[in-house]
C-alpha cells in the first residue's frame, strides 16, 4: 500500500488494515505457549497428550497433525462464521474437523505408515480433541480469519510443546534414547543403570504433566486458581 500523501489522512485508514504480524497478532500466537497453554491452563486435549508420548517421534507427528487441524479448522470456521446458524454450529464444526482429520489420517497412512500404525485410533481422536472444539467455540466463531489461523497455530504449538517435552522425558528415562538414538551409553548399563520401567507406563505422563503444572503455577501466581 502506498503511503498516504495527504498529511492529515483520517486514522480510519490505518485501523482498517492491521499489519500481518502486529503486536496483537503476535500475542495471539505466543500466549498459548505458556500463559494460556491449552493443556496445562485451559485443561483441554489431555487424553492424547498422555497416550502418544512414550516416544518422541509419534508425539511430534501427533503435534503436527493437531496443529494442522486446529489452524485450518479455525480458519475455515472463521471464514464461514457469519453463515453458521448457532443451533447447529457444533455439528458443522465437527464435520469440518472430521474432514480435516480424515485428510491427516490418509496422509499419515500414505507417507509414514509405521507411525500411523503406532498412533492407531489417536489420529481419529483428534476430532474429539477438546483443544480444537474449545478454540473454535472460544475464538474462531468471533474473530477474523487471520487471527483465528494464528490462534490455531499458537495453540497447536503450545500443545506440541507439552507433548514433546513429556515424550522426551519418557523416552529418555524409559528407553535411554531420544528419537530412536541411544543416548545412555552401554557402559552405564554395564555398571548397573536400569531403564525406568515406570516411564513406559501411562501414569508416568500424568506425573510429568502434574509436575509441570506445579512448576508453572508456582512460577506464575496468577495461574493458581484457574481451574
Amino acid at each position, binding site marked *: 500500500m502506498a503511503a498516504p500523501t495527504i498529511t492529515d489522512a483520517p486514522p480510519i485508514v490505518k485501523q482498517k488494515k492491521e499489519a500481518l504480524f502486529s503486536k496483537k497478532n503476535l500475542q495471539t500466537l505466543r500466549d498459548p505457549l505458556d500463559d494460556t497453554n491449552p493443556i496445562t491452563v485451559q485443561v483441554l486435549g489431555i487424553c492424547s497428550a498422555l497416550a502418544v508420548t512414550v516416544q518422541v517421534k509419534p508425539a511430534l507427528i501427533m503435534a503436527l497433525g493437531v496443529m494442522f487441524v486446529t489452524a485450518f479448522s479455525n480458519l475455515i470456521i472463521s471464514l464461514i462464521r457469519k453463515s453458521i446458524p448457532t443451533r447447529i454450529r457444533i455439528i458443522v464444526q465437527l464435520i469440518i474437523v472430521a474432514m480435516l482429520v*480424515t485428510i491427516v489420517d490418509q496422509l499419515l497412512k500414505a507417507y509414514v505408515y509405521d507411525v500411523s500404525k503406532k498412533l492407531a*485410533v489417536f489420529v481419529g481422536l483428534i476430532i474429539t480433541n477438546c483443544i480444537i472444539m474449545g478454540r473454535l467455540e472460544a475464538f474462531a466463531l468471533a474473530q477474523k480469519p487471520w487471527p483465528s489461523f494464528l490462534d490455531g497455530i499458537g495453540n497447536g504449538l503450545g500443545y506440541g510443546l507439552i507433548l514433546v517435552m513429556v515424550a522426551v522425558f519418557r523416552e529418555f528415562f524409559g528407553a535411554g534414547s531420544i528419537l530412536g538414538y541411544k543416548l545412555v551409553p552401554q557402559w552405564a548399563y554395564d555398571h548397573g543403570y536400569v531403564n525406568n520401567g515406570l516411564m513406559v*507406563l501411562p501414569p508416568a505422563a500424568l*506425573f510429568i504433566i502434574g509436575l509441570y503444572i506445579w512448576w508453572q*503455577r508456582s512460577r506464575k501466581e496468577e495461574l493458581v486458581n484457574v481451574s
Partner: protein
Amino acid sequence: MQHLLNLFIKAIFVENVIFAFFLGMCSFLAVSKKIKTAFGLGLAVVFVMVLTTPLNYFILTYMLEEGALTWIHPSLASVDLTFLAFILFISTIAGAVQLVEMVIEKFLPALYTSLGIFLPLITVNCSILGTSLFMQEREYNFAETAVFSFGSGIGFFLAIVLLAGIRERLRYSNVPAPLQGLGIAMFITALMGLAFLSFSGIKL
C-alpha cells in the same frame, strides 16, 4: 459366553478407558469435583456409549467396509468407504448426545443444570469415539461390540465416581497452592492408574 464375560471384565478393569488409554480425560478431570454430578455424567456416558457403538458397528459393516455394500448390488463389492468412518461415527454420536440432552432436560432438569456445558461436550468426549474406533480396529463382531461398549461405559463411570469421591475428601487436606485443582487431580489419576495396572496381571 466365557469369552464375552472376559471381554466385559477386561473393558472395565484391565483396559479401562480412563486409566489404560486416557480417553475422555477432559470431562473426567472437569466434572469430578462432586460425586453427584460425576454420577450423572457417568450414566450419560454409559448410555451414549451403549447406544452409539453398536450403531456405528452397523454403519461400518453395512455401509463402509470393503464389500459391505453388496446388499445393494453385487457390483459394489469392491467399494471401500472406510475413510468416511470418522465423519459418520461422529455424526452418530452427535445425534445420540442431542437425544440424551433432550431426555435429561425433560425428565431430570436438576441434573441438566448441574452438568451444564459438559452435557453437549459428551460429543467430544474421546472415550466415546474411542470405543467406536477400537471396535473398528479390533474387528469385533456384534456381540463383542455390545459387551465391549457396555464394559467401557461402566469403566468410565467407575473411574469418574472414584475420582470424585477422592476429590471430595481432598478438600480437607492441605495441598500446596500451586498444586491445587488440576495438578493434584493429575497426580491422583496417575496413582489410581498405577493401582489399576495391578489388574493387568489377571490373565483372561
